[in-house]
């Protein structure tokens, strides 16, 4: 069973995404912050991380930078699902490749169906 780590600071959305991906047959771990994410990853390496960049204390980019140093996460894909519009992020293809980012979506515009599709494609 593929494992997804959801990093989402809003509890309402976190529960929605958790329920949705669990129904789709994934093993889901959900956390609300970077520090919780690091602890979760140490327990159980995910196959996919779905992350909001605007996180409390340490933002998503700082977390992705930290995770880059983990040898056993090189195969782990990342989907950015953020309240920050994708075109404001100014992420080059080189940066996306370096962080293994397979998709960057604007959360308000991204339906559950679309997010499931992206996750499924990433985990094929």
């Amino acid at each position: 069973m593929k494992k997804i780590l959801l990093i989402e600071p809003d509890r309402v959305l976190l529960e929605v995404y958790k329920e949705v991906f669990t129904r789709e047959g994934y093993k889901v771990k959900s956390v609300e912050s970077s520090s919780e994410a690091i602890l979760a990853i140490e327990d159980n390496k995910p196959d996919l991380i779905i992350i909001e960049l605007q996180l409390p204390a340490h933002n998503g980019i700082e977390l992705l930078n930290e995770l880059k140093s983990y040898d056993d996460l090189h195969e782990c894909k990342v989907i950015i699902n953020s309240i920050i519009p994708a075109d404001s992020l100014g992420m080059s293809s080189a940066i996306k490749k370096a962080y293994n980012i397979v998709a960057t979506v604007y959360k308000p515009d991204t339906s559950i169906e679309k997010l499931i599709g992206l996750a499924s494609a990433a985990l094929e």
Partner: protein
Amino acid sequence: MDNSIDERRLLTALAEQLKLPITQISRLVELKSTDHELIRQITETSEIALQLIDGLILSIDTKSQSSLSLEPVCLSGVMQEVAEDLAYHAKKYDCSLEVDTSVSMPIMGNYKALKSAFTTLGYTIVQGQTSRQSRVVVKSYKHNNKIYAGIFGGEKVDQDSFKRSKILAGSARQPLSKSSTSSAGIFIADSIFATLSGNLSLVRRNNMTGYATSFVPSKQLELV
């Protein structure tokens, strides 16, 4: 600290914060409901709310910058996309929505700002319809060596009422008395266009009145 800067900052912060509950509504309905039509209604309505918020944030941002970055834009492409975004709402408000962008004209503009401005303008016009089965046209055309683009149809407004409404926007509940709403989308669009091309004007074309802005065509882009 200048009060107007404080207010702009507060407004921007509020606008950003509002995106979250609107997104929550959309996703909760998707999760909890099996009624596809209800899901569609709520997600389309939420999307237009988010468009209005993003348009507001953009118009505030453009006030604090001197201009937006420009790029070659296919105006007719933008208008087509705007019409697609408005299609569901037009149907909901019993309007027929048409697109008239038969001339393909490249301009120097800002795609995101243009799309945001025309969508918020279009939604406000569609939503402000009082008669049934009215006609709204998303249009761009060439006239006197300029390219005009705008949304036509809707309640007829005269120049004086439009000028007055710009002064009343934000302080009167109905700056355009023929509309029951604050008509915010018109003023947000006006604010965005002011930094791109020029303020919105009330124009008349083919027996229809509408709000439009004008661009100077780029001869270099036409050659490409």
